[in-house]
């Protein structure tokens, strides 16, 4: 299944201090370990949507999201299975996007979803 992410489904406010980064902003309410692909497909769209919306008002956050989204998520207490990879594609497309793939047993990669890195909210 291929999900196109637009940031519309960002989760509501995270309240617990457990998953909160130093500056008081949290992507998730608690340390979140997505154990397998179904969990990634279920939860990552909201989390990435929330990260994208944060990036609109924070150039440093936006750079981190574009340079190494996996590392950024880990910094904000979101951990992905090793078989799942996040890559930023820029070449040949109008806007960069984060592509989430799963490593299959035969070495091929299956695309799970992608997030276009838009600058602000579309209609």
């Amino acid at each position, binding site marked *: 299944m291929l999900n196109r992410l637009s940031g519309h489904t960002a989760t*509501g*406010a995270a309240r617990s201090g457990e998953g909160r980064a130093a500056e*008081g902003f949290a992507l998730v309410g608690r340390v979140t370990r997505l154990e397998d692909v179904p969990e990634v497909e279920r939860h990552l769209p909201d989390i990435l949507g929330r990260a994208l919306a944060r990036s609109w008002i924070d150039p440093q956050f936006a750079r981190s999201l574009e340079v190494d989204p996996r590392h950024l998520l880990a910094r904000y207490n979101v951990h992905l299975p090793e078989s799942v990879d996040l890559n930023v594609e820029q070449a040949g497309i109008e806007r960069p996007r984060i592509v989430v793939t799963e490593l299959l047993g035969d070495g091929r990669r299956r695309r799970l979803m992608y997030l276009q890195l838009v600058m602000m909210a579309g209609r």
Partner: protein
Amino acid sequence: MTAHGSRRARQALVAFWLGLVPAPAASARDIETALDHVRDGRAAEAVAIFRDLARAGSSVAQVNLAVMHARGEGVPLDIEEATYWAWRARLMGETRAAAPSEALLVQLPPAQREAVADRLASDLELLAEDGSFRAFVGLGLTELEVRRPADPRRASLWFTLAAAFEEPHGFALRDIALAELDERDRLRVQAEARSVFGDWCERLPLEKRPASCPAAASENGN
């Protein structure tokens, strides 16, 4: 329900309400025009469009106006203004405003945070007067999520009114918020709600007044 369980339930419901209520439709073509202006480096023109639409109630324009203020593009950098518009959007159901509104709010010192809470409360009351019952929920959430220290009693009063006017989620938020108060405060909120319900009936447009409004409110509107 234990106090801890009740708090968690309220948090979950607040998150649900803030995250899932669909935003009202905006003027899509105007939004697209403004976004084109941003891409073309004409930020001031984009701000002018976003501002007009935001004031007219477009939550998409509100969140984008917040972004422009937060970036200082087309307008002076202004975190307080950005925070206000991000929360305006969020409280009226724009899901994409959730992350910016939180990230902006924590940057404000207490006095500015209070100013944003006061401004939101004032503007949401005007929306409520126009018959937007969702604004009653927004008013309660302003007292819980924006104002510091939070004012759970006042929030409970707004949720009680939201429920009385049959705003979806008002019922659950009212019950959970009231459950967090002690018995004395709970009864005080109910007494105050009873007292102000009639006042609010009179402030609502006639066509939005529920049949349960006191007769005097209906007669005054005729």
